[in-house]
């Protein structure tokens, strides 16, 4: 009896899911015309004016980004639930450096990653015999080539930029893994990690129902959206100001290809913006519209997601400073090269 009392009564799952999908689709098609109508008819601003364009950008972008986040993060979290690190570890263990790095970078896209899990993940990989380079390929790819960034890029800029971002991120992860593997830096891993090697415990596998999975995905998404909402608001506000007021000439003069310092500058700017990928995308959207080159834009996005001081501090618990420095150096260099290369190749 107690067992029954503890279960919460809920509507049938297909009904809830179906209604949510329908509401999402309707909102997606209604929001842009609604924003224009609100700006130019209800508020009565003139199209083409600074203020009118800025307000329209804000009112159109906020629901759009929120819809993208809510819809996509829920779906993606649901998919990621099928690829926990416990399940992909046996796939990577005992592979050579080259095939392993490719596999790790690819699996990094679908595997959920939280910097607070980085330490147990690192120990778990190393003790099971996953080579050091392969482990780093995964540690670079997983936060950087995350599906949330990919889908936001796809939704706001189209498939071209999303695919370019994915290709660039995978390249940095694979090359980074290969470089770290070839440098043979095993002695810079904290000694206690090696003591556990060969004592790998078979990873646990827990069966979940679809209801569990859907509940988890929704709980994760709503927590995430609530957490990043202030940054999103600030990002879209700043994006709106740039869109309405900043002249294209200024962006091109400072951020254009002729200024070689632009790529390192945006990477530096991105370092304190860790974990605010969603909030930075509207700023990027506005800057790209004002003529910021694609390579510079990609470097900025990649640096926001991949260069994270809190994560470096956490990883210090398992690796010694020289390896940490190589890790940070390889990632930063990779991002800079990608930026310069895209700027050079395109246009």
């Amino acid at each position, binding site marked *: 009896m*107690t*067992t029954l009392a*503890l*279960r*919460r009564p809920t509507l049938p799952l297909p009904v809830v899911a179906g209604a949510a999908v329908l509401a999402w689709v309707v909102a997606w098609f209604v929001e842009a015309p609604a924003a224009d109508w609100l700006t130019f008819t209800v508020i009565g601003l003139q199209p083409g004016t600074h203020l009118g364009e800025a307000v329209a950008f804000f009112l159109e972008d906020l629901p759009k980004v929120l819809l993208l986040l809510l819809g996509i993060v829920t779906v993606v979290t649901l998919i990621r*639930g099928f690829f*926990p*690190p*416990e399940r992909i*570890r046996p796939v990577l263990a005992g592979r050579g450096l080259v095939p392993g790095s490719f596999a790790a970078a690819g699996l990094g896209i679908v595997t*959920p990653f*939280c910097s*607070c*899990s980085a*330490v*147990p*993940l690192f*120990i*778990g*990989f190393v*003790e099971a015999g996953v080579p050091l380079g392969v482990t780093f390929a995964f540690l670079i790819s997983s936060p950087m080539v995350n599906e949330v960034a990919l889908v936001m890029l796809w939704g706001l800029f189209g498939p071209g930029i999303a695919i370019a971002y994915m290709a660039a991120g995978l390249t940095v992860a694979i090359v980074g893994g290969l470089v770290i593997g070839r440098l043979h830096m095993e002695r810079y891993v904290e000694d*206690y990690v090696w003591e*556990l090697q060969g*004592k790998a*415990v*078979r*990873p*646990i596998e*827990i069966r979940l129902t679809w209801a*569990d999975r859907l*509940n*988890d995905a929704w*709980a994760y998404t709503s927590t995430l959206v609530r957490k990043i909402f202030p940054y999103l608001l600030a990002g879209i506000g700043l994006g709106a100001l740039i869109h309405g007021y900043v002249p294209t000439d200024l962006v091109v003069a400072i951020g254009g290809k002729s200024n070689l310092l632009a790529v390192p500058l945006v990477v530096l700017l991105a370092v304190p913006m860790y974990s605010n990928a969603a909030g930075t995308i509207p700023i990027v959207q506005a800057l790209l519209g004002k003529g910021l080159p694609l390579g510079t834009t990609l470097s900025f996005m990649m640096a926001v997601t991949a260069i994270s001081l809190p994560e470096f501090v*956490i990883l210090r*618990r*398992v690796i010694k400073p020289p390896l940490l420095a190589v890790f940070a150096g390889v990632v930063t260099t990779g991002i800079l090269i990608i930026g310069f290369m895209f700027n050079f190749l395109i246009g």
Partner: protein
Amino acid sequence: MRTIEVLGSGCANCRRLEANAREAVATAGVEAEVIHVTDPREIVSRGVMSTPGLVIDGEVVSAGRIPSAGDIALWLTERS
């Protein structure tokens, strides 16, 4: 006396799971001790790589997710 262990580094998700576990103990009306395990070696030795993990009486019941207080209470009563 039952034992519930929360495996995690002390991050926000782990604290949320610990709160759910304490709530579950109260709801289910069982006598249980809630312990927070933060040593990564200890966490990995239980076969868990994605935190937070939840262990009831030595058995890992969840990893990489935050089960609700209701779910945990259900596991506690099912296992007694």
